[in-house]
């Protein structure tokens, strides 16, 4: 009996789907995801949409923070830029959603490039503060650049459509989210196998050493910023089209923290981790919601405490994972898998 998965060539090592079992279970997952709208109710699909959007945003942030090691506290602002770009393009210029979405990603990437410029000069703590400042400056612009963003009133966005098919309900929109999320995850997973991905990891591990090996820091750091904000922009565009409205309150500093929490809980530098983290962090408030709803008769005041309780739980999750499981859920998943692979001889 094979007691492990041994690779004999680089080609095998670089394959995305390494074994038959991986392919099989991915196939099962795909079938499940495609038939989910047929069996799930609106609430389930609403959650599924939220998870899909969160996955795209989290993968983007993980490319920047987890893989390249550049901390960003302004991810929500890029999501917002994408959201506003989509809304403005669709309502003011009549661009169909299908073109507005990638364009919005491009706009967010451009803003990300500008915000990324300090990363060429400073790193660590200082970069973290610079992106934090960017978050607040962009948030202020969302509120006060009224001629474009319509301030706190926000912009109403029509649902996307192809011909007569209008993606208005959770059920139909789910397919858009699914396709975009799968594309996004696949692209990210692939990019990590290329020259770019290796450059990202090298910069994270030691930037000076990476530069000595001939990696152009200037270029790859900006690429990472642009890529990450592109993902954020796409997530924002989807969010806006899903919610059918965009206002400044949708992209607060708290959302940036939520995204960071996703990649920390999921696993820094791991695409699988971003997916786990996004699912986990979307499910936690929903579970909390269910719990507060179920105990309403016993503790009537509990649902008013929903938001602060969410804060406490998110904060505790960040702290606990950082202290006890810095590699996140992805690492737990690996350990679980290897436990069964190697059982009963786990040494």
């Amino acid at each position, binding site marked *: 009996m094979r007691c492990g998965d041994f690779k004999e060539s680089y080609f095998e090592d670089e394959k995305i789907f390494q074994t038959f079992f991986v392919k099989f279970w991915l196939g099962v997952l795909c079938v499940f995801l495609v038939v989910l709208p047929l069996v799930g109710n609106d609430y389930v699909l609403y959650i599924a949409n939220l998870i899909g959007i969160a996955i795209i945003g989290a993968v983007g942030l993980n490319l920047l923070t987890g893989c390249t090691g550049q901390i960003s506290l302004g991810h929500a602002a890029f999501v917002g830029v994408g959201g506003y770009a989509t809304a403005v393009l669709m309502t003011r210029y009549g661009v169909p959603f299908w073109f507005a979405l990638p364009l919005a990603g491009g706009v967010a990437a451009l803003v990300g490039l500008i915000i990324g410029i*300090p990363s*060429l000069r400073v790193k660590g703590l200082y970069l973290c503060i610079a992106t934090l*400042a960017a978050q*607040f400056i962009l948030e202020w612009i969302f509120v006060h650049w009224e001629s474009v963003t319509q301030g706190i009133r926000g912009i109403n966005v029509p649902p996307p459509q192809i011909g007569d098919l209008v993606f208005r309900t959770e059920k139909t929109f789910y397919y858009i989210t699914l396709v975009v999320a799968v594309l996004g995850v696949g692209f990210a997973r692939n990019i990590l196998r290329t020259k770019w991905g290796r450059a990202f990891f090298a910069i994270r591990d030691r930037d000076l050493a990476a530069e000595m090996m001939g990696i152009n*820091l200037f270029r790859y750091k900006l690429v990472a910023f642009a890529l990450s904000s592109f993902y954020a922009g796409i997530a924002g565009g989807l969010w806006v089209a899903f919610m059918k409205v965009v206002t400044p309150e949708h992209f607060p500093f708290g959302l940036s923290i939520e995204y960071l929490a996703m990649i920390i809980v999921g696993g820094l530098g791991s695409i699988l981790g971003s997916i786990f983290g996004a699912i986990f962090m979307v499910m936690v408030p929903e579970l909390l919601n269910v719990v507060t709803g179920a105990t309403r008769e016993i503790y009537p005041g509990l649902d008013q405490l929903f938001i602060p309780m969410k804060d*406490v739980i998110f904060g505790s999750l960040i*702290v606990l994972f950082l*202290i006890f499981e*810095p590699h996140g859920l992805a690492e737990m998943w690996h350990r679980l898998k290897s436990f069964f692979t190697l059982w009963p001889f786990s040494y």
Partner: protein
Amino acid sequence: MNWAEPVVVYGLLTMFVKVDFFRAVCRGLFAASIQEGTMDIIPQIIVSGLAVGGVYGLIALGFVLIYKATSILNLATGQFMTLGAFVCLSVLSYAAVPFPVALVVTLGFAALLGIIIERIILRPLIGEPIISVIMVTIGLASILKGLTQIIWSPDYRSFPQIFPPEPLDLHYAIVPSGLLWGFLFAMVCMVIFALTFQYTRTGLAMRATASNQQAALSMGISVKSVFALSWSLAAITAAVGGIIIGNISGISIHLGDIGLKVLSVIILGGLDSIVGAIVGGFIIGLLENFAGVYLDTLLGGGTKDVVPFVVLVIIIMIRPYGMFGKQIIERV
């Protein structure tokens, strides 16, 4: 000044059209400063800017204390402020004790909180990458914010009168009582801290740890207790800052947002410089107040909260170590 009017009109027009953002700002600034009447408010702006700046300096001191001792940027400072202000308010209103007693209780609570947090949350992360340490303070901020909201409900509250209400009239400017006493209070605290640092054995131990941990350890200084002390002192400065600001503008859960604004103060002054924190506090206080008067009308309000962050970005781009910080930035 009969030529002032066209300028004002032009400034307003540019503002409404908003063709060119920067031109509008420049014209507007120019127009506003030569307008009759607004000349008189400049001393007023300066005085209140300095007063607010003093409080910012005190809060910034909390950041600097922790950064010097442990190289951690405590992003939960704002929540320490809120918590301190709420504890003080509760002690005042439920125990009905005079303010000095409530202050002592609050400071004791803050010191204890600082020590506990350092021991439980920060110490396991010594030597971890910077992202973990920053994120843990963010997580901490989230926890504290939620807990504060659960315990004290998110409503806005006003602070009971603890300082004499008469404002100070300087003839050319009037200082509201809250600002005046807050400023004095902050100054006293800062002087106490500065003297402690300079002239006591504890202060010496803290300075030694800041300059070289290994050397300090081998000289018999307990670096662990210095860490704990730094956190408790930082919690104390934050609590005092929270009480002062709560006294000026009332307490709500959003009081803590000022904690992030103060980041611009420490970046401007230099992350590891106590002098920088104080001077930076004054500069940011002034800039913010000027922006609040001159830029708000042009850009549609709220500039007070965003100008510090703009300053922060500019400083990070041109001089990341700030005015007085040590130049140990590694160029990449």
